[in-house]
């Protein structure tokens, strides 16, 4: 039961993008087409789940055990960077088109604050291993949901009559604000 709660909390109620403002850069950068947004979401979900799976043992069995928890940022960043590198290799191999479409945003997952934030929250909230993985996966799913919603709206926006002053980045940010407002409705349902 707790696992389901963690999953739903991470993906909807405490959605990283829309309630914590983490991971905004790909959220705005790669959300112009649904296909790219979905791929970006899947790649980030993969990285997030593996991050949780890798950083938890690193933290518990190495950093805490040897009494050097102050190394957590460095250790987490190294682990995340390695995972992103892996994802990049895989995508490059499996689909050059997606690789080109994602461009710079793919390596930028390395410094995506949502991923590091996930690792730090996990430590902060004392999750055990299974909970951490669910938390990581839920966060990734939440990220993907936000990406998909954003890209869906932005695709419709192509045909909408946007006033000239709002065109481009500004209307995107306004929409992001409205979505955050909508997600406020979930606030307080579960912690």
């Amino acid at each position: 039961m707790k696992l389901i709660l963690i999953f739903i909390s991470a993906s909807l109620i405490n959605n990283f993008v829309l309630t914590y403002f983490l991971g905004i850069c790909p959220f705005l950068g790669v959300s112009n087409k649904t296909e790219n947004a979905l791929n970006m979401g899947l790649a980030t979900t993969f990285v997030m789940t593996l991050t949780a799976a890798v950083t938890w043992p690193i933290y518990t069995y190495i950093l805490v055990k040897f009494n050097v928890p102050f190394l957590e940022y460095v250790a987490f960043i190294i682990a995340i960077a390695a995972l992103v590198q892996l994802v990049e290799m895989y995508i490059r191999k499996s689909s050059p088109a997606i690789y080109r479409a994602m461009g710079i945003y793919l390596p930028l997952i390395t410094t995506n604050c949502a991923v590091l934030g996930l690792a730090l929250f996990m430590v902060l909230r004392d999750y055990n291993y299974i909970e951490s993985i669910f938390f990581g996966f839920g966060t990734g799913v939440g990220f993907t949901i936000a990406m998909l919603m954003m890209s869906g709206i932005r695709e419709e926006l192509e045909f909408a009559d946007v006033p000239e002053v709002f065109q481009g980045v500004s209307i995107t940010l306004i929409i992001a604000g409205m979505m955050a407002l909508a997600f406020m409705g979930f606030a307080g349902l579960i912690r």
Partner: protein
Amino acid sequence: MTGGIVIISMASMGGIGAILSLFLAYADKKLKVEEDPRIEALLNILPNTNCGGCGRAGCRVFAEALIQGTASIAGCVAGGQAVTDNIAEYLGVESQKASRIVAVVLCRGGNKEAVKNAVYKGERTCAAANLASGEKACIYSCIGYGDCVQVCKFDAMAMNDNGLPVVFHDICNGCGACARTCPRDIIEMHPLEHKIFNYCRNKDKGAVARKICKVSCIACGLCVKDCAVEGGIDMIDNLAVINYDKCPQDDQPTKRCPTACIIFGEEEKMTRETYYASLPKEAV
């Protein structure tokens, strides 16, 4: 004690790093992307200037298209015949004759000829000045701030002392970057066989055009009559438009032009050498 922590930190970070890099090294082997070695070889043949003259996003994309067979081997306009021959030799197909294309600036209304009716003090680019319709009275004319020269990757253009761009006929390889940049579309790409041009784009009526520029096309129609072939030159929107399919490339239609805006064989005179030789000594 501090020393102990340092050693433990170093050992743990080193250990994590080592394990992850081992893992990545393994993944790199497993997931290695086999790139077609021919792309690299073709890139060595191509000019690698990414000028976009072939209509593709860059030399690499063109090389990929060549291998897939979706591009013509004569597609690289910047490289010309030599590159086309090399590509053909490398791919083992028969070479095609690359048609050389050069840029032609279709305005001769420089500072001396064109009337100015405004002073422009903004950003010194044609794109910006075009928003305020430039300094010259003629709204079809060259603005004269040299966006085309800026964008030329091959040093095949320069702004002359009359405020007009010149194309070095021997250097220009026809990538078309200048034609795409010009906000007034007065630069056109033409194959070498085209030798007669109407160097004016003014669509105003003759009386208006004559007032604002000394070398404007006033739509008198003399060249239309003088062209040896019927329909070789048409009068469209107060402009003499040369129909290159029909009009014989000689100086017959140019002889009676009252404003000398239609000229034959002018382009090939301008090479880089003749241009720089024509400049005053101190300017060089």
